[in-house]
């Protein structure tokens, strides 16, 4: 396997064998370790000393199901701390097939406003070439993405950044192609797009033709693990074909979070949204059925996914508005802004994809602006207009593009739902205490995927725990965070967790798959330890960047404002929050 280092100072590159100490790292484990080892914690995130690291998971590029995840890591311009964001895309499988364990983008060109793209092809080893890309800037992604396919053919995978990244926003993602060449699969959170753009890099095009594919040391063990994983995914009610995810998509969660009183509404001022049924996954399914005249089940975002949770939203005429509208986006652009018009929510989602914005940060930021009176709650046309302002980079657009925390500060808003500068996702910490502990303590800034305690607290996956109670939740969040750090390294999409946390043979299947690929003999304990090591490396970086345990806290209003309908506050003691990492 190789490390490919691309130097944007002078547009050169270097291919080396993976150094021994990194041989058994992949995905988030690899991006975070590299960033922690090589990026000065106090550097400016958009300066020449930050590095942008891409790493696919251990299993990406193999036949393991649902395993084409790519991790993107750097110091975040949104949080000022370490960041890993990941996405499902053929790009991950192609990078792995070319045996590139890490792609590291370094330096910064002297030419201001100039952009390049790179192509990576296989000529006995990975080969990098540079091409001019300034002409593709200042345009929405759907207008420039097709040019890559015209230039380099159909067999490629494309990574890019949009106008949000070119403007240097803390809210800007790195985008990858889906199975239909759409620029829609985002490593969205924490401003990874701006880091890439700051290096004058617009596109990374992969062509795996002739590449050897991922080496597998113990094929029999890998096959055994793969079968166990497939069995678990095919039988679990959430992940099986025509199961909840395949039928209703992730937005199936809108109704259950609303029922639980934990669907953040109108800038986190209520846990219930009366418009929830109109934007829920069920409404998406029924609306599509009516408009297309048939039941439409969801599709895969990336090759080899057998869960297939990605939806498409069609308009009255049966034309596509957007794909995919995830729960998080549906909520942030919908309920959190008081918007219940599904078509407008879909359009907002399409605009975020077009400009290269993170949907979670965008919706929550607009909700903060609504709280400030910039536009009223529920004003979907006004929200669409604000997203255009962000895309164009007007003064108000730039304020919003800097994220919810900055917008709150500019407008003097006190109810700003962020941790470490990153906006909270779609679960109310006052109604679901465990997820609040994850938001507060994860190295990433408020992030649900970092330790998804919603599984036992709401969904009855891996047992049941009372969401309103803080009891035992620090330990729960810690265990989820460590396990997740490993799953984020495996290459599997996190949604496999629904199946493998309930079906023990599926969990063993994941370990067997990874051992098969690497020729290791890791146990369940070993992978938990590795997860913990990843978290510790991230934590060390953050502390050196000035983000210590004082930053592991909820915004004040969550401790003082009771949230309807349960009228709970966030009552987890600071000592419990501190214990998450202290006892790791």
């Amino acid at each position, binding site marked *: 396997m190789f490390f490919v280092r691309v130097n944007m100072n002078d547009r050169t590159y270097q291919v080396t064998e993976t150094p021994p100490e990194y041989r058994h790292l992949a995905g988030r484990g690899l991006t975070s370790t590299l960033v922690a080892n090589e990026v000065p914690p106090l550097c400016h995130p958009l300066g020449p000393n930050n590095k942008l690291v891409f790493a696919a998971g251990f299993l990406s590029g193999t036949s393991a199901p649902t395993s084409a995840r790519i991790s993107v890591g750097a110091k975040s311009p949104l949080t000022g701390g370490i960041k890993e964001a990941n996405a499902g895309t053929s790009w991950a499988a192609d990078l792995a097939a070319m045996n590139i364990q890490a792609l590291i983008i370094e330096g910064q060109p002297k030419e201001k406003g100039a952009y390049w793209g790179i192509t990576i092809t296989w000529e006995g080893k990975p080969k990098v070439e540079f091409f001019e890309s300034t002409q593709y800037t200042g345009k929405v992604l759907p207008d420039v993405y097709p040019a890559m396919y015209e230039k380099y053919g159909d067999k490629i995978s494309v990574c890019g950044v949009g106008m949000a990244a070119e403007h240097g926003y803390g809210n800007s993602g790195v985008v990858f192609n889906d199975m239909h060449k759409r620029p829609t699969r985002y490593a969205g959170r924490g401003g990874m797009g701006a880091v890439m753009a700051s290096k004058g890099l617009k596109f990374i095009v992969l062509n795996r033709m002739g590449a050897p594919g991922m080496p597998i040391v113990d094929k029999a063990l890998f096959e055994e693990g793969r079968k166990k994983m497939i069995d678990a995914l095919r039988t679990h*009610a959430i992940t099986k074909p025509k199961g909840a995810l395949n039928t*209703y998509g992730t937005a199936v969660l809108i109704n*259950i979070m609303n029922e639980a009183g934990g669907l953040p509404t109108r800038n986190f001022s209520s846990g219930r949204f009366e418009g929830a049924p109109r934007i829920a996954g069920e409404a998406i399914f029924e609306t599509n059925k009516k408009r297309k005249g048939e039941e439409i089940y969801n599709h895969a975002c990336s090759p080899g996914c057998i869960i297939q949770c990605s939806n498409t939203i069609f308009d009255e005429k049966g034309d596509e508005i957007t794909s995919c509208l995830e729960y998080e986006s549906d909520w942030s652009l919908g309920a959190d802004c008081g918007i219940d018009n599904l078509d407008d929510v879909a359009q907002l989602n399409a605009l975020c994809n077009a400009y290269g914005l993170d949907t979670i940060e965008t919706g929550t930021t607009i909700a903060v602006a609504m709280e400030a009176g910039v536009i009223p709650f529920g004003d979907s046309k006004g929200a669409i207009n604000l997203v255009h302002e962000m895309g164009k980079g007007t003064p108000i657009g730039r304020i919003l593009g800097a994220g919810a925390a900055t917008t709150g500060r500019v407008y003097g808003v006190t109810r700003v739902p962020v941790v470490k500068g990153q906006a909270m996702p779609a679960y109310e910490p006052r109604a679901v205490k465990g997820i609040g502990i994850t938001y507060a303590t994860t190295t990433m800034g408020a992030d649900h995927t970092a330790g998804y305690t919603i599984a036992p607290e709401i969904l009855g996956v891996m047992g049941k725990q009372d969401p309103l109670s803080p009891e035992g939740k620090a330990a729960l969040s810690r265990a989820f965070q460590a396990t997740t750090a490993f799953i984020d390294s495996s290459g599997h999409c996190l949604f496999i967790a629904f199946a493998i946390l309930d079906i023990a043979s599926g969990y063993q299947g994941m370990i067997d798959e990874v051992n098969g690929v690497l020729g290791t003999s890791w146990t369940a304990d070993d992978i938990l330890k590795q997860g913990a090591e990843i978290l510790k490396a991230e934590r060390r970086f953050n502390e050196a960047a000035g983000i210590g345990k004082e930053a592991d806290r909820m915004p004040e209003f969550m401790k003082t404002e009771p949230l309807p309908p349960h009228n709970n506050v966030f009552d987890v003691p600071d000592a419990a929050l501190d214990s998450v990492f202290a006892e790791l």
Partner: protein
Amino acid sequence: MKITVKLFATLRPYLGEGASGTPVSVEIPPGATIGQLAELLKLPPGEVKICFVNGKICDLNHVLADGDEVGIFPPIGGG
């Protein structure tokens, strides 16, 4: 006694043709549990996964009271 019931996702058709989550008033015998309500509505047992009473998660032997709002979900997940 009368309670309000909302059924979600794949359970929706068991209360007639309303949209998912539309509240429907249901008459049940006093002292009935959620489990008995599920039987009354002929919900397939394996499909009843998470039950809410007035927004709080309850198990199948929770005894219902007059005027309760019940929400029942099949196994679902997302993120």
